Structures are given as structure tokens and as C-alpha cells.
């Protein structure tokens, strides 16, 4: 069963401060995502990966095309859906984890993670208990749970970010390099959490910068180049995918070739 059908998606930024300069970030992008599928999005820096994720979450306003989403309540076009409906979808259906946490002043790690549950009307006590569980699983030291993420290291912030993104168990999860900058052990914890989300039939669209993540997690990978869709591979073909080798895995491959 298909969950999302993206058709002819385009995004052009118009920079009025630079005399109306136009920047084409996405052009005629079309693909489908099956329910429960883990779709990887690959491409070089500046190829439009984050723009794609942000268009789906509607942090960016798509300029062209449609993004049909089939929810239990019927099909909607994410590209043209009203702001209020998007707010409800974000609360009940879709989650987003970016590369960086946006810590709020005077809000503790525990409260940041409990927030999405509270927004759903879950009572404070239960929200906190679940938040503790998710922080534990993300591997944030207990001593930090009641302090402010504004003071945390990048890696510690990212653990809060992941816990916050996963706690509401969204049916559609959007990831934008959630493991960038994490050490090996931290990354393994996140991978385990994502694998578990996958087992619960969560549909995931994820941008990563290292090839290994695609190989371990993705059912299918699409490749973006200069805002256009340039390729797609699934299962065993992912390993030999053109752009993956050339782009993201570059350094790794080079080193292997030299040895």
C-alpha cells in the first residue's frame, strides 16, 4: 500500500533582498513511498535533500507539484493542505528530526522530550515517564535529564532531538542527517531505535551522509543531483548504486582503493 505519492515537486526560492534572484532547489521530483518502507535520500551537499524533507514537512512551501498522503482519514495533498491541518498532522501523524536540536531557553531535556506527548493531551506524569524511557534509550546520561540542552554538547543535544522525534511514534518519520557528528556508540543506539521504529511499520524518509547507514537501514534509496531525481535503487542494488559510491561514500572508497 502506498503512503505517499510525490509528483512533479518543485521548489524555487525567490530572494527579494537580492533583487528577486531565483534559486531552483528542486525540479520535477516524483517518487512513491510504500507504507512501512524506509526510503533513503542521497546526494551531494546542495543537491536538495533537506529541501525535499522540509517541503514534505511543510517548513518550506512547495512551488509546484503535489504530495499525496494517504492517512487513515483519507487522502490529502500535503502541498496544498491548510496550515491548521498541517499542525494536526504534525501532532498526530508525522515527525521530523533534523541535524540540530533547537533548544529553548529554560526548558529541561526531559521537558523538551515530553512536549510532543503533552501536545497530544497526554497527562504530565505519563509524558514524563515516557520521556525518561526515551532519553534512556537514546543514551543521554541521567545527570543531564533535568538540565538545559542550551548547555549541552552537539552529541548530547542530538540525543534529545532523537528522543523528542520518536516519542510520539509518528507513522511517518522524516530524518535529516540525525546521526551526523555522533560517536560510534551513540550512533549504534540511534540505529537500534530506528530499526525498532521500522519494525513498528513506521514509514521513514531519511537523509544520511554515510553510505553505511543506507546499507543498514534503507529498503530503497533515491538520488538527487542539482535538485533533480537521478536514480533509485532497492535491496541488494543499493550497494552498487552509482551516486552512492561517487558521492557520499567517496572518502571511504578512496581509502579502500589506496590500501
Amino acid at each position: 500500500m502506498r503512503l505517499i505519492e510525490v509528483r512533479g515537486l518543485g521548489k524555487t526560492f525567490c530572494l527579494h533582498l537580492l533583487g528577486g534572484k531565483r534559486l531552483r532547489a528542486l525540479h520535477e521530483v516524483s517518487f512513491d513511498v510504500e507504507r512501512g518502507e524506509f526510503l533513503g535520500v542521497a546526494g551531494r551537499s546542495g543537491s536538495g535533500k533537506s529541501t525535499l524533507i522540509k517541503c514534505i514537512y511543510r517548513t518550506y512551501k512547495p512551488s509546484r507539484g503535489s504530495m499525496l498522503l494517504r492517512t487513515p482519514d483519507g487522502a490529502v495533498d500535503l502541498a496544498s493542505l491548510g496550515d491548521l491541518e498541517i499542525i494536526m498532522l504534525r501532532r498526530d501523524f508525522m515527525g521530523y528530526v533534523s541535524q540540530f536540536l533547537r533548544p529553548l531557553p529554560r526548558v529541561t531535556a526531559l521537558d523538551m522530550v515530553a512536549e510532543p506527548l503533552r501536545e497530544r493531551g497526554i497527562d504530565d506524569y505519563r509524558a514524563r515517564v515516557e520521556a525518561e524511557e526515551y532519553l534512556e534509550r537514546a543514551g543521554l546520561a541521567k545527570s543531564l535529564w533535568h538540565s538545559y540542552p542550551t548547555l549541552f554538547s552537539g552529541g548530547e543535544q542530538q540525543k534529545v532531538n532523537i528522543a523528542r522525534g520518536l516519542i510520539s511514534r509518528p507513522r511517518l518519520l522524516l530524518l535529516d542527517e540525525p546521526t551526523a557528528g555522533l560517536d560510534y556508540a551513540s550512533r549504534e543506539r540511534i540505529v537500534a531505535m530506528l530499526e525498532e521504529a521500522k519494525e513498528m511499520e513506521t514509514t521513514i524518509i531519511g537523509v544520511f551522509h554515510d553510505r553505511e547507514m543506507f546499507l543498514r537501514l534503507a529498503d530503497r534509496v533515491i538520488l538527487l543531483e542539482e535538485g533533480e531525481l537521478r536514480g533509485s535503487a532497492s535491496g541488494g542494488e543499493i550497494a552498487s548504486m552509482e551516486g552512492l559510491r561517487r558521492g557520499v561514500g567517496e572518502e571511504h572508497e578512496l581509502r579502500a582503493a589506496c590500501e
Partner: protein
Amino acid sequence: MNSVLAVEKLTKVFGNGCPDCLGGVGDGQEGNGQEGNTCPRCGSVVACAGVGFEILRGEILGLVGESGSGKSTVLRCIYLDLQPDAGCIRFGGPPGIVVRAGEVVDMEVRRELRWRRMGMVYQDPKAGLRLDVTAGGNIAERLLAADFRHVGAMRKRASGLLSRTEIPLNRLDDLPRYFSGGMQQRVQIAKALANNPELLLLDELTTGLDVSVQAQILDLIKSIQRSTGVSMLLVSHDLRVIRMLAHRTLVMKNGRLVEAGLTDQILEDPQHPYTQLLVNCMA
């Protein structure tokens, strides 16, 4: 969906006005009228023109724009401090209670709206507080208006509100005149919350406070929203405040609404030239 407030085509002109007022004042788009909000022909000020939006139950709606763009005017029309020249305001419903420009608002309806359904925190504490009436007295005034009659119950509610807004209880009988700016804002908030309103109108609530006090007040607002589910219309020219609190955001310029959207979209993908400028100035 559950609507708390719907504003339609709200227009307010200060001055005598002339047929050219609305056409003469533009929204800052190239070739669309002149800059500024003063009518080139008669000199009247177009404080807001054709403004429309809706607030849902439990929602925090941000309203941003530079000084003089008309934000406070919109708020004061909603709170019935000002009479709009055109447009209408619907509270609750539909059908709800509808207030139309040019129609006299019945005293009973006015009371219901101002003293029960809404709470207002003014930009200037002097406008929202009686500085020479004790903090407790300021709150009691509102409780009385909502038919609280029992003195003991009133005092109890007042002290509950003060502790909710983190004002030391021993200040209950002191005069707000001698309070710090942050403390005055807290008393205003306590007063505005006194009758469990369904809509809070907040005008530049942290302007002029130092940064750590600002953070505390914002924190307070967030926790109030969480525990009471009250809807809020939050006016600010500070995008950081909007980012922290608002689900959706409206952008005003020269009395017009130039953009409306999800707060993260307004901040990360602003469409209107003016919004781009505003966001750019913050970064």
C-alpha cells in the same frame, strides 16, 4: 474545528479619512501604493485595513510587524477598546457573538466579552493595571466583575493566581506602582487570567524587560498555555518570542496582513519581501 475568534476585513483609520485612504496606503509590494501608512491626500493614518484571521481553541497565534504596523490596533479592536471602521469580529461559534463595525455593542455583551471571555495584557502596564490599587485589589476587581462575591474565596483565588504567576504572596497587598517591570507584567497576566478566559491577548509582553526576566515570562506563558489550554494572540516584534511560542504567525506591514503561515515556514521560507527583510534582520 473549534474556533475561538474570527476576524474579518478589520479596518481602522485614525483621522477624518477620505475615499483615497485605503487605496493610497499600500502593502509595501512594488508599485502598490506608497510606503508608510499615512494617506497622501488627507493625512489620515490607516492603522489596519482588511485584516482577517481565525484562532482555534488551544492555539497560540503570533502577530509580528515593525513599530506602527498596526498590531496593537488589531488587538485593541478585538478587546473592544477601539471601534473599527469596517469589518466584523466573531467570538466563539459559529454563530457565537458577532461584533460589527458601526453597530453599538450591548453593555451586557461587552461585559461578557471583556470580563469573561478575554483577558488582555497591555504593552504598557499603566494601561492594564491600576498602579495605586494593590496587586490583590487589581485582581479582585476582575473577579468582582465576574460575580465573585465572597471575600474569602476571592482572596484565595487571587493568591492562587499570584503563585501561578510566581509573584511572592507577601506582595499581595503592595502597590504595583513600586513593582519592577517584570513583576508588573506578572500582575497583568494574573489579572488577565482571573476569570479563566478562553482567549488571552498579549501585546509586546516582554518588551523593555531584561533578557533573563524575558525568558521567565515566556516560560510562564508556555506553562499557562499547557495547563489551561487557553488560546492566545501574541503580538511581538521579536521573532525569537514568536518562534518559541506561536504555532502560526501573521505578518503585518502598514496596516495590512502581508503573510500568514506556520511559524517555522514564516521563519525559514518567508515569501513576502517584507517578511524576508524581517527574518534577515534577526539572523
